[in-house]
């Protein structure tokens, strides 16, 4: 086993990887931008190295600085987490050239899948269905406009080098295409360093379903079942669950086989995710492959009883896939749901910042919390708004939903606004509870129900502060406020 591992990331995923590293007896070594020096993830490491001042581009996205940190730290391996440089073939190569283990797929596979246009072509060649759209021949605006007329509206403009919904926009009228292309190219250039874009037919109310895949150096590739990711806001996932209510065993098998085939086609080694869209007639289409650990990997861990980060490290170090995986012996147990707690306005989805005055996550049966913050943490808008993930596991889907509701109700968060009320509304919504929902679920949500908490509670809480109890004095009894009539303030 290796003695130490550089975790080239921040937030919850850096903490999560550090935990598994510690469990494996590997020293977790961290990095941080100076503005992040006080962050929770830094203290979860055995040691941590500064990447200096500056925005992400000059810190967590700086290959030279991370390589320098890896050298100085004397680590034997690098785990990139997700986001940042996790899908950078250049970073993967630099790590390998240093003689270190790269906890990720081969750079060639990253490149093949990272270029979405090339990946679409590759998948077509392998016989895997892709969403109808433009190919590499349509590069300039003019060619794309012609292609758009052919595909028809609504359609999507996507960044070829992108992923995770960044830089994606929907076009409902052909005359809006030029502006959409310009905008997408601008965002893609900033976010991914390339302004190549392509078009895809917009599927109406698709489900977004992905399969976890794993390959080893010996040519074995398996899938580890699906994750249902249709609950999205602005094309970004906020809740994932497994199994998906949309799949029956036959469809699951067909999609799983296609996912493993997709990974095999690019010589995949390590953990990856093949994303599909499933339309209302149950046709599935390859969407993209994420060549890294996924934010929502824990739900797969929960239903299969696995530690995917441990498996990533083992496979990167040269081990073969476990025999049970290859033998098709894996059987998911129970139902798992992940909820992403974002620092953002629950209605407008705009990022929120501030200092977490209290952050007390839920506990108890079936509850897992992967957090990147704690009470006292500062939250800035500089990075991804993800504060923590709640993962619940229960015997069946209904119990999992009930457990998730209970857990959200327990979660004490003060100081920074979060999307927790939105997550509560999703869990209460009829489409979600029925299992019959698609990517339009969040848009279709009914407005928030009447506030279940009387306004007087908020006032009472605040008022009581104005009559502070002397330090050390601990009243044992409730303090009656003597009138006993009901009241509800007008909104």
């Amino acid at each position, binding site marked *: 086993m290796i003695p130490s591992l550089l975790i080239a990331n921040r937030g919850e995923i850096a903490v999560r990887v550090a935990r598994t590293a510690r469990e494996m007896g590997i020293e977790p070594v961290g990095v941080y931008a100076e503005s992040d020096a006080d962050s929770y993830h830094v203290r979860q490491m055995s040691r941590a190295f500064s990447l200096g001042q500056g925005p992400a581009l000059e810190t967590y996205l700086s290959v030279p600085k991370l390589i320098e940190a890896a050298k100085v730290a004397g680590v034997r391996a690098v785990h990139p987490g997700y986001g940042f440089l996790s899908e950078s073939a250049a970073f993967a190569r630099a790590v390998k050239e240093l003689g270190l283990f790269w906890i990720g797929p081969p750079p060639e596979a990253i490149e093949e899948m990272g270029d979405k246009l090339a990946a679409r072509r590759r998948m077509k060649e392998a016989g895997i269905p892709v969403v109808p759209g433009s190919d590499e021949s349509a590069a300039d605006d003019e060619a794309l406009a012609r292609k758009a007329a052919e595909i028809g509206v609504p359609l999507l403009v996507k960044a070829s080098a992108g992923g995770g919904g960044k830089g994606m926009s929907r076009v409902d009228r052909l005359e809006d295409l030029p502006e959409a292309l310009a905008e997408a190219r601008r965002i893609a250039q900033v976010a991914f360093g390339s302004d190549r874009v392509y078009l895809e037919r917009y599927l109406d109310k698709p489900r977004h379903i992905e399969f976890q895949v794993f390959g080893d150096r010996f040519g074995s590739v398996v899938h580890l079942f699906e994750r249902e990711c249709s609950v999205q806001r602005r094309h970004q996932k906020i809740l994932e669950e497994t199994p998906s209510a949309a799949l029956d065993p036959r469809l699951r098998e067909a999609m799983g086989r296609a996912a493993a085939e997709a990974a095999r086609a690019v010589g995949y080694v390590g953990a990856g995710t093949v994303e599909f869209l499933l339309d209302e007639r149950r046709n599935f289409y390859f969407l993209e492959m994420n060549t890294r650990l996924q934010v929502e990997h824990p739900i797969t861990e929960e239903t299969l009883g696995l530690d995917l980060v441990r498996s990533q490290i083992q496979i990167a170090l040269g081990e073969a896939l476990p025999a049970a995986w290859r033998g098709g012996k894996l059987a998911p147990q129970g139902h798992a749901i992940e909820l992403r707690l974002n620092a953002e306005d629950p209605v407008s989805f705009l990022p929120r910042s501030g200092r977490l005055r*209290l952050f007390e996550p839920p506990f108890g049966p079936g509850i897992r919390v992967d957090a990147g913050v704690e009470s006292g943490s500062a939250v800035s808008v500089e990075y991804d708004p993800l504060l923590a993930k709640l993962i619940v596991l229960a015997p069946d889907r209904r119990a999992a939903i009930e457990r998730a509701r209970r857990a959200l109700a327990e979660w004490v968060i*003060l100081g920074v606004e979060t999307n*927790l009320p939105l997550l509560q509304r999703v869990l209460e919504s009829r489409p979600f509870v029925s299992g019959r929902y698609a990517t339009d679920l969040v848009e279709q949500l009914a407005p928030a129900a009447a506030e279940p908490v009387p*306004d007087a509670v908020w*006032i009472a809480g605040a008022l009581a502060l104005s009559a502070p109890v002397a330090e050390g004095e601990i009243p044992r009894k409730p303090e009656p*406020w003597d009138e006993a009539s009901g009241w509800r303030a007008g*909104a």
Partner: protein
Amino acid sequence: MKLESGGFTADVQLDGDTAVIDGRSVAFRVTRQNGEIVEVEIQGRIFPVRVVREGRRAAQVWCAGRGREVREASASARAREAGGDLLAPMPGVVRRVDVKAGAPVTRGQVLMVLEAMKMEHAIRAPHDGVVSKVAYGEGDLVEAGAPLVEIT
């Protein structure tokens, strides 16, 4: 004292052990533990709460999965509140200004575009009216909650 939070404003007075809110007596008990407020009971229903002070004139209150800031309403705060959508929704940079003082605007019209972390956000007119003030220009940094445009 006038308190405000999210959707409501209320006149609140403490009269001995009774709280009079908007002229009506309110029955509630507060349970403390280690000096911290942990429960509010109203009409026999118990609500677990957590409270932290936010400066001298505000508190953050958590109850049933959500947090709210409750603060003493000052004239200026009320004025800002009325501005509604015209406050900066996030810290960021002004990318574009589409209107000038004196311009008539219609509901929904884009007045200004803010950018933060590669996300753009259009500031739109909440109602028809005339622009009375534009507080920032292109490239200016704004804090969350800063008043951007005034419409009368």
